[in-house]
């Protein structure tokens, strides 16, 4: 049975917001979130009952984020805004802004792969479905993204914990 849409918002709203932040930056994340859930609500009656709702929402967020990024390229706005309100939950010893800048500086595909795997927790096969290409390519993009982050994000370099 299909659960009420409110449950999807309750269960996945936070994850989708964080994914949107990673992909489009803090400034546009709220618009991307709103577009995502409105589109999801429109399509929800046709979603198969056994579908993975979170992967489905991230797929929609991915498309909406691309729309936002394309719209921004046509405007003279800076790319890779840091969030207006800095997190208090970041990696200890790191300046939060550093992680954001490091993530914003990643090539688009790496940033997407990192967001969908590490923030949304999707499997690489699901990410491949979103990005196009193979599961291996998705795994490589995430690994390359993490390697780049480790290079450019002092907090992570200092910790050096395995992924």
């Amino acid at each position, binding site marked *: *049975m*299909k*659960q*009420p*849409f*409110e*449950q999807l*918002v309750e269960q996945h*709203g*936070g*994850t989708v*917001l*964080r994914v949107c*932040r*990673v992909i489009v930056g*803090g400034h546009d994340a*709220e618009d991307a*979130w*709103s577009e995502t*859930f*409105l589109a999801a*609500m*429109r399509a*929800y*009656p046709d979603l198969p009952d056994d579908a993975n709702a979170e992967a489905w929402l991230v797929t929609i967020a991915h498309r909406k984020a691309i729309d936002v990024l394309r719209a921004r390229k046509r405007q003279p706005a800076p790319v890779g805004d840091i*969030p207006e*309100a*800095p*997190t*208090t*939950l*970041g*990696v200890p010893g790191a300046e939060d802004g550093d*992680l954001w800048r490091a993530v914003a500086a990643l090539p688009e595909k790496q940033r997407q792969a*990192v967001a969908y795997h*590490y*923030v*949304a*927790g999707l499997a690489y096969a699901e990410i491949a479905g979103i990005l196009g290409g193979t599961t291996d390519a998705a795994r490589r993009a995430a690994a390359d993204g*993490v390697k780049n*982050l*480790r290079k450019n994000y002092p907090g*992570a370099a200092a*910790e*050096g*914990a*395995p*992924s």
Partner: protein
Amino acid sequence: MNISAGDFASATDTDTLSRLRDRLGLAAEAEGLLDVAYTTIDSPVGTLLLAATPKGLVRVAYDIEDHDRVLDTLSRRISPRVLRAPRRLEVAARELGEYFGGQRQVFDLPLDLSLSTGFRQLVQRRLPEIGYGQTRTYGQVAQLVGNPRAVRAVGTACATNPLPVVVPCHRVLKADGTPGGYVGGPGAKKTLLLLEAAA
């Protein structure tokens, strides 16, 4: 390295999400996507869930009916496009507040009776004819709907009333004058009857 969802969380996420959810409710309404809007209100008979379709109030549910189950049923029977969106329920919430405050005797709300069918809906349509502070027996209601032998069916119609309080099944009693069953539990039925008797 440790990258996790927490790294991209913000201390203000709860506020942000609450604001975004409000905005989603308004946008969904504007786009005609809000098939079922709901909210909850406090009342002397416990927390009540109120739900409305674009046609009108479709469900009033007591706590003991289990609001999660009620929402699941609305999702299955009407549409899964269900959102907590209090705006559509503002008038209903205000009228119920007035009723529980003794300031209102008749509800003036568009109703959507699509959760019940056939004889049950027929009975539920006629129940508002029992005025505030009055009572009828199940047998009298059976006569009212032109089917005097359908006493048990009237009982079922009352027990499955999707709009308790607003559609006053609490005004229907057993022939011996005892309250009989009630979807909100016997305590709630008594509370409503006492409220109306006091006026």
